């Protein structure tokens, strides 16, 4: 049933004072009438792919949803590249294949290996343009990769991309049951993303002060869940990333808000 007859029928029911209770008072077409808010949440039915990043796994219950698009947005030095690598590390350490579409050719394989990525399981695609990146992501999803991370770099030209691109990607992820993490400097995927997390208010952590030598110790970033399914939860978590591979004091969840 199209939207317009449904709205007309609902208005008639309201004016007639008929309580809208599906399956009880109405039969036939009316029994199939329900509000959008009553729709079962797609996200609730999906299985999650853990990222092994406590903050992300808490914001997105269980991790990245399989069969959906999760958008992670954040400006430079917001920590989103590190979070993408962490998701790849979690998937590949579990023996799963994963793909990284790296628009800016930014991956440092040594650092990725140090972060726990099994490089043998990782397919690295390095497109030149954003359209190529999205086409490559769609191909990789269709190939059956359980996790595809598309990092659109620092300044992708997404302004002129039609919305249909994101819908296609969402449909492909849904059809294949793949988790698709889209990492962008700003929100681009519109309504196609099932979950949107923004990384902002990042603050570098330095060791040493005054005349003592300085040392970059890490980055404190704030992850905000801006969209999840059809709701806008606006919950946020601070998360610290360590620049020192042997420093155990960082790299863990620090505070909830």
């Amino acid at each position, binding site marked *: 049933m199209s939207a317009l007859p449904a709205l007309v029928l609902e208005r008639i029911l309201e004016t007639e004072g008929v309580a809208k209770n599906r399956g009880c008072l109405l039969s036939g077409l009316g029994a199939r009438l329900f509000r959008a808010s009553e729709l079962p949440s797609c996200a609730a039915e999906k299985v999650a792919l853990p990222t092994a990043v406590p903050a992300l796994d808490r914001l997105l219950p269980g991790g990245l949803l399989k069969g959906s698009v999760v958008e992670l947005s954040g400006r430079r030095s917001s920590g989103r590249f590190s979070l993408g690598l962490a998701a790849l590390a979690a998937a590949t350490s579990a023996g799963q294949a994963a793909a990284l579409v790296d628009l800016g050719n930014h991956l440092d394989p040594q650092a990725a290996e140090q972060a726990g990525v099994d490089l043998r399981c*990782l397919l690295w695609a390095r497109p030149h343009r954003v359209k190529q990146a999205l086409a490559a992501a769609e191909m990789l999803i269709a190939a059956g990769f359980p996790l595809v991370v598309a990092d659109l770099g620092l300044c992708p030209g997404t302004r002129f991309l039609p919305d249909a691109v994101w819908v296609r990607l969402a449909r492909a992820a849904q059809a294949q049951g793949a988790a698709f993490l889209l990492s962008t400097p700003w929100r681009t995927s519109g309504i196609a993303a099932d979950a949107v997390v923004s990384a902002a208010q990042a603050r570098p952590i330095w060791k040493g002060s005054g005349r003592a030598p300085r040392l970059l110790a890490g980055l404190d970033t704030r992850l905000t869940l801006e969209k999840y399914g059809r709701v806008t939860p606006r919950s946020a978590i601070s998360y610290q990333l360590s620049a020192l591979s042997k420093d155990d004091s960082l790299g863990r969840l620090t505070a909830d808000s």
Partner: protein
Amino acid sequence: MPRLACIFVPLFPLAARLRSEPDLKGEAVVVVEGNGNAARVLAGSRKARLCGIEAGMTLPQARARLPKLTARARDRESERAGHEALLEVADGFSPRVEDGGDGVVYLDIEGIPGLSAAAVASRPAAESFQPDESELQARPSSPFSDLSRSAERVLGQDLIAAVERSGLPARAGIASSKLAARVAAGLPDSPRVVSPGEEAEFLAPLPLSRLAPEIEIAATLERWGVRSVGDFAKLPPGEVESRLGELGRRFHAAARGLDLRPLEPRLPALSLSEGMELEWPLVALEPFLFVGNAALERLSRRLEAQGLACRRLELILKLDPDGCDARAIALPAPTLEVKTLLTLVRLELEARPPGMPVMGFTFAAHPDKPRRAQLSLFGPPALSPDRLATTIARLASLLGADRVSSPRAVNGHRPERFASAAYEPPAPPEIARPPRAGRGLLAVRVLRPPVELEVIVDGGGRDLLPLSLGEGRGEGLLVAPFRLLSLKSAGANGASLEIAGSVRIAAGPWSMEEGWWSDAPAARDYWDVELTEGGLYRIYRDRASNAWFADGIYD
């Protein structure tokens, strides 16, 4: 006594042409050989023959009878590809196959009909071979059982069906000699089975033209009044030999059903090829890809029928007026997907156009076994090797072969270093395991190539020094301690990545030196820099050129 089958494609030049251009099926078409008005009809379709067009007519004569007649030049490339396809069908039935020339294939079927005897028994009676009553009366005591004959007939039907699936019409004959099998295959009621030892009886009522005698012998025999094969076989062999010579002796033996030529099996082909000669030269890419798509589809079907996939594709272009252009396209893994192959061909031709009109083409596929994977019940799902290979090929065609790989760590100190290898993921674990706990490391977004910077430093009591720091240096090192004040990407407006701002905190320098013994040494001083406007960068000063660069962003 051996049992041989012969597959025969009637009007082979026309059949091969129609296989390349299936749209012409059902039309009045002739294949001609020669140029202009001297072109003569080699073969015509049924519709053309019904209008009175016969082989040997000139094209104007044929057009006079049917003005809307479609004429095609004889295409040797299509014929070669069609004949290869015919041989491959035969290879699917028997390991011993002989190439009998254009549209003719012999195969040794010894033992094969026995395999289909069960199939015969299970078939409905209406489908089974029911010998004629006259045939039964003529051979009441034949040791060749009805079941064997039925099994061979079923095999013949299967052969015809398989050849027709490859796009060619076919007839089949089964006998104990190549000659009898070939003659049986030429008869319209196909498949025709000749029982062992009954070749002479089978040939006797047939006209002499079925044995395709040489012209001079045919003329002599006609003067003698010999019309059928049986009449000729009744003549005394010695007399025939004394009058017609060695040729006559062989022809007489053939008429008596004696053919002692053994089957000469061919060696299997190392590559499969498809192609055609074009009616007119092509100069644009799209029309070429249109006809190339059909050829690649046929090639893919042939590979699939043999359980193979294409590992390397060779493209040979016949150029106008002469010359040829050959090129090879290596695939990352065997694939059967026509779309991928066509995309690779498109990219290859776009990158290196042949430069002259194309008159014909051949695609040659070097086959390999497609990769297979064993799926796990309890572990994570493995990627389908075939789909993965196809995807990698398509990505390589989209991005470039060097832009799709699996990254590898490399020993060294330069942060931008990396290596890559072909993506061949290990088999997933048999039992799903949980992911390892995250290490929460801050990663660096490497800038390739590094962004050149203009850096302002505080020279320790002296004036602020712009980028050129040569005054304060000795032996390539800064003499006095200094402070980074601000940085800006060189030519910021035109730069691909804009970096500009005042330095809030800087940590460094850390020296790095590598490859001093090589032609491209690296000697750098690194800083980690936080800008007041936001952004955490890794920058370095190249000691050799005294230039500043940003080669990473902590992100």
